[in-house]
């Protein structure tokens, strides 16, 4: 399988404008093709959703094509209700009918999906309104450490303080060998990125999405990613050069009719330990104690008089090129 090249990215002065150009606009353009390649739920996420009690209502912050909205599939439709939030209107149009094909084949009527057009750093819901929240492959699209932290704070605020459950996935610097992407390692070290950006560890990169004309013109989508993007590189602005200059990338207009279009999506690739540190920092800002659920049977001892909000890190790890963390809220 050909590897797509990832190039270093610099954030322009306005992170919102950076995300608008290098994330939101790109997803709106590649929505159909992107969706056709995103259909298989990841096992840890499917398992998390299958363990939620019937009647739970949750938020999927950055739902994309809504592939997690129909889950769990091993229980009756509507046993839980996941509401999808995304910044890309075109992806939401697809998410509205997520899982419809599966349901048409069965006798059970498809439950139309609930979706909201919004930003994951916005707060268009009541505090503590949700029983659970997931944010899968989304927070890595935010352009600064503060904005990524704000996104985690929004997740902590949107769930029940006494029992809310949260699952977060982000892209890792450490990519497995099955990954299609090759990541530049020479020009970046952790210290470099720390010193230059002041945004902590991790790497800011552009990841090309190759959209062949076949996928844009006749509407018939192939569930496959890309030919080698290097083949089209000579016809487009040199993306490496553009990135290091901090200028924008214009790739769409100078291609011939049969040339694939290349869209560069911005990612912040997380370093080892960075996601858990981000959660700790977000919780700290909200005055939430990090630690396991205290043993309620103990009535005395150090700290037993303390009352407040807590957060247990249930599990964290690396799976198939992503870091994940599962959280559970508690109050006493």
């Amino acid at each position: 399988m050909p590897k797509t090249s990832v190039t270093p990215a610099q954030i322009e002065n306005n992170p919102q404008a950076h995300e608008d150009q290098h994330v939101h606009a790109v997803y709106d353009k590649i929505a159909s093709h992107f969706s056709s390649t995103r259909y298989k739920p990841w096992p840890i996420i499917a398992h998390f959703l299958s363990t939620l009690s019937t009647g739970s209502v949750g938020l999927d912050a950055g739902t994309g094509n809504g592939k997690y909205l129909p889950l769990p599939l091993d229980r009756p439709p509507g046993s839980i209700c996941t509401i999808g939030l995304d910044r890309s209107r075109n992806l939401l149009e697809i998410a509205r009918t997520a899982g419809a094909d599966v349901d048409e084949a069965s006798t059970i009527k498809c439950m139309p999906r609930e979706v909201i057009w919004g930003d994951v750093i916005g707060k268009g819901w009541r505090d503590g309104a949700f029983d659970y929240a997931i944010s899968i492959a989304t927070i890595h699209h935010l352009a600064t450490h503060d904005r990524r932290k704000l996104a985690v704070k929004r997740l902590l605020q949107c769930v029940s303080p006494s029992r809310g459950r949260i699952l977060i996935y982000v892209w890792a610097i450490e990519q497995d060998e099955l990954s299609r992407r090759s990541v530049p390692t020479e020009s970046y070290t952790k210290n470099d990125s720390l010193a230059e950006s002041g945004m902590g560890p991790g790497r800011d990169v552009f990841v090309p999405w190759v959209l062949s004309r076949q996928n844009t013109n006749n509407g018939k989508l192939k569930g496959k990613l890309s030919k080698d993007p290097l083949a089209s590189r000579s016809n487009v602005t040199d993306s490496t050069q553009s990135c290091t200059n901090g200028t924008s990338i214009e790739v769409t207009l100078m291609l011939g009719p049969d040339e694939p279009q290349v869209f560069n999506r911005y990612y912040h690739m997380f370093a080892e330990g960075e996601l858990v540190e981000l959660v700790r920092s977000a919780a700290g800002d909200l005055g939430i104690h990090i630690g396991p659920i205290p043993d309620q049977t103990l009535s005395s001892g150090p700290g037993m008089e303390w009352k407040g909000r807590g957060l247990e890190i249930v599990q964290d790890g690396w799976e198939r090129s992503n870091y994940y963390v599962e959280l559970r809220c508690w109050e006493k």
Partner: protein
Amino acid sequence: MVRLITHNLLACHVKNCTSNNFPLAFKDLGDTSLPAEQPDMIDDEFLQKLHHVLLEIHVEEGSMVCPNCNHVYPISNGIPNMLLAEHEIG
């Protein structure tokens, strides 16, 4: 779809709009099957009405208005738009 179960979770998030900011008001929903106050006795008839209102009413086109600051959140093609302009973000 915007079902009312989803609408029931939403709140206005315009800068400094932090109290009396939900529920967002529909201009004209045309459904009066539920009483204004929670009844003393929750019976099957009430639960059926509640189920109907929460899960069977879909709003495809319309708008929701913040009771506090009057910000309008439009709904089109069944998708509510909760995005704010840059100057409205708190």
